[in-house]
């Protein structure tokens, strides 16, 4: 049921930053919840968080498959889920990393180098008929870069899925999910 959609850059995508207890199987619990309820994920990134014993899972969800409120509430029923923050894309910093190997002969290599330079991508490896580049940045920028690269023939591509944190300017607001509010949602402020 759960499909990972190729692009998460639609204007009304929703980013959930989910703080979980770092227990065995926690990622499987989150993933199987999405599968079981028929919710779609654009991307998912997970790594240890600042608190010991906690991990942060950044999920970009497709709200066409279910109302966001229902997704958040179902997620919060997982015992290992400690906190859910819905990040507004306009008030968050979002980053993603892209690695791509492009087929290119020596003759045309400069075109890729030029493209990489414009995007401030890094050239990681160069071979006689291919090169590997990396780009870190906003997912939209990665989309553009990927599209231009694909004209040249991408051999392999890997993106990390986005990670995000709230913007710091003017105490950006985010919605914090707590079980004590009548609908499970209240406004909170970032520390």
């Amino acid at each position: 049921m759960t499909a990972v959609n190729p692009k998460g850059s639609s204007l009304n995508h929703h980013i959930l930053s989910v703080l979980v207890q770092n227990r065995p199987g926690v990622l499987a619990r989150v993933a199987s919840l999405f599968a079981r309820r028929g919710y779609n994920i654009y991307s998912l990134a997970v790594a240890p968080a600042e608190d010991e014993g906690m991990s942060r899972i950044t999920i970009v969800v497709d709200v066409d498959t279910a109302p966001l409120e229902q997704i958040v509430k179902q997620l919060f029923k997982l015992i290992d889920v400690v906190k859910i923050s819905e990040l507004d894309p306009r008030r968050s910093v979002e980053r993603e990393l892209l690695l791509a190997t492009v087929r290119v002969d020596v003759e045309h290599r400069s075109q890729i180098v030029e493209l990489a330079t414009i995007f401030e991508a890094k050239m990681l490896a160069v071979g006689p008929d291919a090169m590997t580049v990396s780009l870190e940045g906003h997912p939209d920028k990665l989309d553009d870069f990927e599209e231009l690269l694909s004209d040249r023939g991408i051999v392999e591509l890997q993106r990390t899925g986005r990670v995000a944190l709230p913007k710091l300017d003017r105490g950006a607001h985010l919605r914090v999910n707590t079980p004590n509010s009548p609908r499970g949602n209240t406004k909170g402020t970032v520390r």
Partner: protein
Amino acid sequence: MTRMTGAQALIKSLEMENVDTIFGLPGGCILPAYDPLLESSIRHVLVRHEQGAGHMAEGYAHVTGRPGVAMVTSGPAATNLVTPLMDAYMDSIPMVGITGQVATGAIGTDAFQECDTVGITRSCTKHNELVMSADDIPMAVRVAFHIATTGRPGPTLIDVPKDVLENEMTWYWPSDDEVKASLPGYRPNTKGHPRMIKEAAKLIMQAERPLLYVGGGMLKARAAEVLRELVDLTGIHVVTTLMARGVFPDSDPLNLGMPGMHGNAYTTTAMQQSDLLINLGARFDDRITGRVGSFAPHAKVIHVDIDPAEQGKVRKPDVPIVGDCRLVTEELVKEIIALQEGGVAQPDLGPWKSRISGWREQFPTTYEQSEPGNALKPQFCLEQLRELAPEGTILTSGVGQHQMWSSLHWKFEEPYTWVNSGGLGTMGFSIPAAIGAKMGRPDRTVWAVDGDGCFQMTAQELVTATVERIPIKVALLNNSYLGMVRQWQEMFYDERYSEVYLSTEYPDYVKWAESMGCVGIRVESPEEVAPAIEKANSINDRTVVIEFRTDSNEKVFPMVPAGRSNDDLLVHPTQTAIRDRLA
């Protein structure tokens, strides 16, 4: 510092949780846990199939409110427990499953009787855990019981590898604070939001056509008494869903009984016409709502549920209240009293009540008695059973026509006397659930109503009942068919009967019952019904099975065809001519 094995710690932890009964079946990986059981005060009921253990645990939990415990081994035993776990999850039954697992070093090697129990049961438990160290056993047990019994109750599972059971540990019993600290993401909200409760009270005082739509959550919250207060205070009719039967006495004229797909015509219609549904612990199940878009179109909704995810899942409430049904209803009663004392009065509910009485008089849930010489009517058998049942009888049911007839024709007078599989609809639930219920309430008579299809799925547990001396009574309504499926094929598939006929000859239920140590009685004519039931009621040292040979053509009415609006409900054929008065 008391040193003990993990197995001893497991059994001791269960004792600390006041477990008095375990339903289970031993095997390779769980073997170490069965050894200290010999010295334990806990009674173990040895089942014939692990599914039986799970349903027994559910039946036990249903009637006692305490978590039922099922303990089985790894692999096939764990997978056999999956159905009861899912059943308990759907019906919010507190239950703790304990499964053996292959030794930690063998996990992942496809060892004998290995399966990914935690993975398999992830989506059919509220929480589960693979315990990787003997030291962790007491905490795992405490957490499992805590989660199973708090918030929205549900099943939990602890998977314990064999070497973890064998290894030594130093005994300790975690404190409440330690349990809470280990679960930073689990803080069920039990107290409703005061502003929302005020809002709800206001709506109740304004409604002209209100209904209390009461679900299983009220039983889980043990809120029958405060429900009575609320009804006495407001005079509002009560609708009791399949999971809530018994929470309010059927003898009270304000109880409208079960709504929905096979609900009373007057009950379903009252919901459709209501202007305020006060949902206390129900979840707008599809069997209640029919087509959601046309369900109770004029009604505002107050929804009280301890699970925030139920709010707005199916029907968007006007007033959502997340909290324990009992605590919230208590506050609601206080608010209504305050409003009444402040001079606020409800509108005259007279016109609404007389509409309901009109529907009720013209469209009673009914059946036609069989002609002499013809097969028995199942409803008649159930009515006789009810007439003759000792006070406080607990009724369990399987799934299908007999379940709907039980809910419709039985008169429930007290809470926790009705045990059935509502959400998952698990055929074969009745007999093991009855055994579990009898273990939980040995002072009560427990009647298991069953169909012939259901009976054949779990009848082997009658051996358990005999050998373990847990006498129950079984009313087997044998119509030789998978009756509910047959009904759908008759009504919606042009009478094309596909694979629904079981057999009129086989098995011989009387012989089968006798071979399992039960008293077997066959009943074929109406005059035999009452004497057979009386005989069964008089036998209390053995399990009794009465096989009623019933009419296979009999159908459950009323009925809302699947996917249709509740406005399109089909009344009993004898009422079809006046169908248009139901509006």
